[in-house]
């Protein structure tokens, strides 16, 4: 039991460092056992140090920095559990443009290993989609969905974020 946890923990901790590095270039994220000599009972701490800053308490991170750190943890767990698909509802709401690009870069890394469903109001996230689903509500209070595959869109060439991807 200790080994099952320790192996899994090691995988998540390694993936967390990698995902964090994608989201915070030049920064460093680590998971840490509060009691390393007690793998059976130890708690797990998260350390997040954005680029150019000192390591401080998690609470002192900004809203956007906290979102990114949480996303690094989420994706580290997904990879370690080989989850087949995952749904994220407006997790990019607090991200500025630069961090949004980094988040989309991380989702691109995972594209072949996990199917993602993102709800978003952010334009760049829409532009990164393989499939875009538009939801509307009719005046009769009933929801509808229209789907669009960006392969079919005329304006792909004018979207710089797609040009790169």
């Amino acid at each position: 039991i200790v080994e099952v946890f320790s192996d899994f923990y090691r995988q998540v901790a390694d993936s967390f460092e990698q995902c964090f590095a994608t989201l915070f270039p030049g920064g460093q994220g680590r998971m840490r056992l509060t009691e390393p000599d007690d793998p059976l009972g130890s708690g797990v701490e998260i350390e997040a140090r954005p680029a150019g800053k000192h390591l401080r308490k998690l609470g002192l991170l900004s809203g956007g920095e906290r979102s990114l750190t949480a996303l690094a943890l989420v994706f580290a767990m997904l990879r370690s559990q080989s989850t087949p698909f995952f749904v994220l509802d407006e997790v990019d709401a607090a991200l500025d443009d630069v961090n949004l690009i980094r988040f989309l870069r991380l989702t691109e890394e995972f594209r072949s290993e996990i199917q993602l469903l993102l709800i978003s109001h952010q334009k760049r996230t829409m532009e990164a989609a393989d499939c875009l689903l538009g939801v509307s509500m009719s005046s009769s209070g009933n929801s509808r969905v229209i789907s669009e595959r960006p392969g079919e869109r005329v304006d792909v060439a004018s979207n710089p974020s797609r040009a790169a991807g």
Partner: protein
Amino acid sequence: MFLKSVTLKGFKSFAETTAVDFVPGLNVVVGPNGTGKSNIVESIAWVLGSQSPTSMRSNQMADVIFSGSHSKPALGRAEVVLTLCNEDGRLPIDFPEVAISRSLFRSGESAYALNGAPSRLGDIAEILAAAGVGRHRHVIVSQGRIDAMLSAKPAERRSILEEAA
């Protein structure tokens, strides 16, 4: 294994049968406030077996049944069908495509089905677990919930990891 589609009928703001089709890569759902995007997310949690009305933003499960608008009467039943592509055989049943459905009537009576055959939640949950889809909360980050990922105490975080290992 990936999601092919989710079909909502009478689930929250989706009065009419609405099929939402996905692709294996990055799917992005967009639309104005209040149109039904988070409702789609909740329909996936629900069909995967969520027992908690709180995950449906309510204290009563019956609130997931379309409750009417000025031009459409309330319905008596909500049904969601999730269709999964199983060509990689990750789900331990011998079908290339697997449809999981859940219905709820206003009486409180509910029903599950697997490829059209009446089924129990326990059996469906077992099949999903084999493919790395735990109970719904392991495949969804709900709106506003990403920050909570970081608020866990070290001991709580450890149990989350233990459960996942």
